[in-house]
């Protein structure tokens, strides 16, 4: 196939690519991708569960430590207002941070 020097014609080349047909891969591409998506979803669920467990442990530990260091305070018998009013500034900050964080989201515990 020759190319006229003064008038290069793209039509002579057309849309051809110098690559072999990929029908084999394209035939299974959807299934391969769906498998990948499903394994990613599984990994995400595991990660979400693990982070929820970690968050729960941190909350329990936090309250245990708080409870131990606040002598004579029975956490079951006091209101949240009493709790907050007995907190030091730094603990109150910690508490607000935990409430604001995802750790208290109900959805996270409904796995």
């Amino acid at each position: 196939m020759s190319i006229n020097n003064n008038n290069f014609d793209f039509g002579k080349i057309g849309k051809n690519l110098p690559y072999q047909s990929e029908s084999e891969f394209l035939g299974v591409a959807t299934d391969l991708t769906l498998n990948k998506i499903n394994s990613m979803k599984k990994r995400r669920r595991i990660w979400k569960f693990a982070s929820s467990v970690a968050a729960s442990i941190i909350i329990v530990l936090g309250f245990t430590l708080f409870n131990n260091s606040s002598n004579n305070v029975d956490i079951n018998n006091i209101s949240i207002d009493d709790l907050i009013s007995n907190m030091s500034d730094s603990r109150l900050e910690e508490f607000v941070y935990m409430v604001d964080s995802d750790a208290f989201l109900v959805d996270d515990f409904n796995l």
Partner: protein
Amino acid sequence: MAKEEEIVANIRDGKDKDKTFTLLMNMYKERIYWHIRRLVVSKEDAEDVLQETFVKVYFNMDKFKGHSSIYTWIYTIATNECGQLFRKRKIITSSYDDSSQILLDSLASEPSVSGDELTINFQKAILSLPEKQRLVFNLRYYDELSYHEISEITGQSESTLKTNYHYAEKKVKEFMLNI
């Protein structure tokens, strides 16, 4: 296209995500595969990028608002994924000649390359273009997209794209005439 409207409606309603995704992927995988392949050259990279593209499509389907057509949205994701691959491979360098050279080397070493000399040289001419010109040339010449559609994909203005295409066409012609 009735099927495309059905897919967009399903995405909007959020129903049967897996079925909608399968329809979508079956509809566009070939077209998107060749778009990616023209950009990354390597067969294996193209297969990986195609999968990554559609994984992103799946996890972001609910974010598709229908402001553009669904295939230009997928083209955008695919093009960005190619860019990410280039960055990972450090193909994007301060000089475009380096990235072109890497792609040209990839074309030379790719085992699945076959075709006549003219077609291979034409591909070399395209791979020698600067990145932006290469992208607009591929989308316009092979995919036959309008400047408006290419603008949606690349985020560049139509006038910039026209200029880039004009220069790309000129350089490809020069390359072909000088071999």
